[in-house]
């Protein structure tokens, strides 16, 4: 957390010092083939890191209660509406300078808290009562939660706020103000590493490190691993299983919250339907990496991002979904539990 804040601060300083170098942002013609490859790599990694952060939310929940939380993508969508509302209500896009950086950090942390709490509540209301029911009931409950969230998003977009274009059309995609500009943070030849790309890195990487630390070295992390291995045994050891599950949902949701702000800043669009694609990509990433496995989710996310980008760039955009799912099927044929899924613990 602290790391993330520091990193964003760093980013802002960098952004400020470069404010006058925008003029250099011009193109003198076609890109060479290595420049194209480099640019595709940058795009793929940035998209991949966002997908990875969302995929972690899927994989954590699956690891602990074996539920594919279909509401996760739509939770992120609501997070984006929350972020846009905060930005619009406080006029964060007008703050500029150091205030802008503080505003950005505030939006990030606020949205994470919002998504974490919401995910925790969804678990409490929709999944906890079904703990003893069959996994299928739980799945249906998740689909139901997803529908409710989508419709909440549709309603939210109709609020009479300026950022929602006065709510004239609740379903229309909304523009998310560019709190971080797309100007280059670094440029090699014609390969642009934009400030938004840098932001993605600054937010996702520290969070992944922090999460790894939490799961491996803290008491809560130990408890989470114990519950994932065997909830009954964990309870017998004096672990409050419900509390640990609740914490898992909160952390997964909060990571989704961070991811959705980064996503919104990167794509500058918020729509009530965006959760479907966000959730789908992240879910595939989680499965590809081996669902239930944290490094697997990250690896899966990066791979999906890169495959998409390379397929768009070197095959054709209309084949991209076919390529992604084709590779997924191939990998699952040879490694049914995903790339890193082999290390998955036996469940009895």
């Amino acid at each position, binding site marked *: 957390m602290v790391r993330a804040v520091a990193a964003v601060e760093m980013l802002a300083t960098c952004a400020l010092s470069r404010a006058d170098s925008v003029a250099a942002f011009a193109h003198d013609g076609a890109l060479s083939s290595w420049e194209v490859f480099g640019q595709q790599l940058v795009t793929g990694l*940035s998209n991949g890191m966002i997908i990875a952060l969302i995929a972690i939310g899927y994989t954590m929940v699956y690891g602990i209660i074996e539920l594919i939380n279909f509401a996760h993508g739509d939770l992120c969508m609501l997070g984006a509406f929350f972020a846009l509302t905060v930005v619009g209500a406080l006029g964060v896009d007008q703050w500029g300078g150091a205030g802008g950086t503080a505003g950005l950090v505030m939006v990030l942390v606020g949205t994470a808290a919002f998504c974490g709490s919401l995910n925790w509540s969804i678990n409490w209301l929709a999944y906890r009562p079904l703990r003893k029911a069959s996994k299928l009931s739980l799945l249906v409950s998740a689909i139901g939660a997803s529908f409710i969230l989508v419709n909440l998003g549709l309603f939210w977009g109709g609020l009479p706020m300026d950022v929602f274009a006065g709510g004239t059309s609740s379903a229309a995609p909304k*523009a998310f103000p560019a709190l971080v500009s797309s100007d280059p943070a670094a440029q090699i030849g014609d390969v642009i590493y934009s400030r938004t790309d840098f932001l993605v890195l600054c937010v996702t990487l520290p969070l992944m490190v922090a999460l790894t630390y939490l799961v491996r070295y803290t008491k809560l992390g130990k408890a989470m691993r114990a519950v994932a291995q065997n909830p009954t045994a964990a309870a017998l050891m004096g672990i409050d299983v419900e509390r640990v599950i609740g914490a898992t949902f909160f952390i997964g949701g909060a990571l989704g919250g961070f991811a959705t702000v980064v996503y919104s800043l990167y794509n500058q*669009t918020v729509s009530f339907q965006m959760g479907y*694609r966000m959730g789908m990509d992240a879910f595939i990433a989680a499965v590809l990496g081996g669902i239930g496995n944290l490094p697997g989710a990250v690896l899966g996310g990066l791979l999906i991002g890169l495959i998409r980008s390379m397929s*768009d*760039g070197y095959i054709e955009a209309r084949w991209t979904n076919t390529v992604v799912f084709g590779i997924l099927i191939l990998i699952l044929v040879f490694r049914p539990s995903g790339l890193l899924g082999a290390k998955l613990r036996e469940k009895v």
Partner: protein
Amino acid sequence: MIRRTASIVAALIGAAFLLAAAPAQDSAGKTLKIVSSLPRTGSANAQTTSMVNGIKMAIEERGGAVDGFTIEYDDMDDASPQKGNWDPAVESSNAKKAIADETVIGYIGTYNSGAAKVSMPLLNKAGLVMVSPGNTYPGLTKPGTGEPNEPAVYRPSGKIGYFRVVPTDDIQGAVACEYCRNDLNAKKVFILHDRELYGKGIADVFKKTAGATGVEVVGFEGIDPKASNYRSLVTKIRAAAPDAVFFGGTTQTNAAQVLKDLRAGGCKVPFMSPDGTFEKAFIEAAGKDNVTKEQGGVFITFGGLPSDQLTGLGAEFVKKYKAKHGVVPEAYAVYGYEAGRVLLDAIDRADKKDRASVLAAVAATKDFTGALGTWSFDENGDTTNKTMSVNTIKDGDFSFLKAVVGGAAKAK
């Protein structure tokens, strides 16, 4: 898969509610009903609301009655919340509902050409006249412009029962390409489309015209309209270094995202798109900073004239609309109005007030004095009106650039 099943179930439930909510039929026989089927749920809502207002105004102008018959109007929605766009299941149920209701004498719709494909054969078989205020895909009416079996496949009865008051994309795509070449001085263009009937259709015409007029097409690609961004595609476009980018698609198929990613990815060349993006929702989704001239500029063709350029009856309509609703109507409102007017006029002229006579009367429309000028329906059911406009975006709003009479430069 689960989602799809769920959405079908939801659509069925929705349809059941619609049926249950239909009022008991009045058997007095002095009432005629007009229905419209437009996407009311989703981002086209602002556009379709103003179209519905236009239809209502056409009915009100006649005092809600024609030739002694009271005119009832039913505003049907052909979109579903799950899709946020038109839904074939809903459009088909709308058409069937209209056919089953014997008092229905005219069907105004659809907005999307893809939706028209669904309801056209149904309505044609039932002999119920269909007047579209929004479909621009040429293959719906013009032989030889679409698939080999078009438009015969939409006319199972062998007769023409579908008419449209809006000029088609084979004219619009050509106008866009001509503008690109002559006014934007583009020598190389990159063409994108949304893989839908409307978007790909117009992109195909653009490509064909480009080939015929010496503009080099450096790329032609279909996008995934649900993708979260198009950055990698933008890299590909940058590598091809075009002078302009044309996107055949609508706001609903992510036109604004394509534009944003072009600008964010550093590709600042003129962006052209057809009238599926000629609505305020597009500017709102794209963000005011991305549509400026400094960022390369946005040029939008429209199969008609924008509200503030209309003359005669059209100008009067805009004035009345503003007085009544307090806002300037969206671009397609006048087509809703015109569709309503031409249908009411035909009902008035029909000697018997049944479906066959009204259909014949619509087909016989000649030198009609409408809000779009004086025009007729030709032998395919198309309007003879071919006035188009090219528009740009200035200060966050659409701004008229010039009027073009299409058809002079045939795409063929």
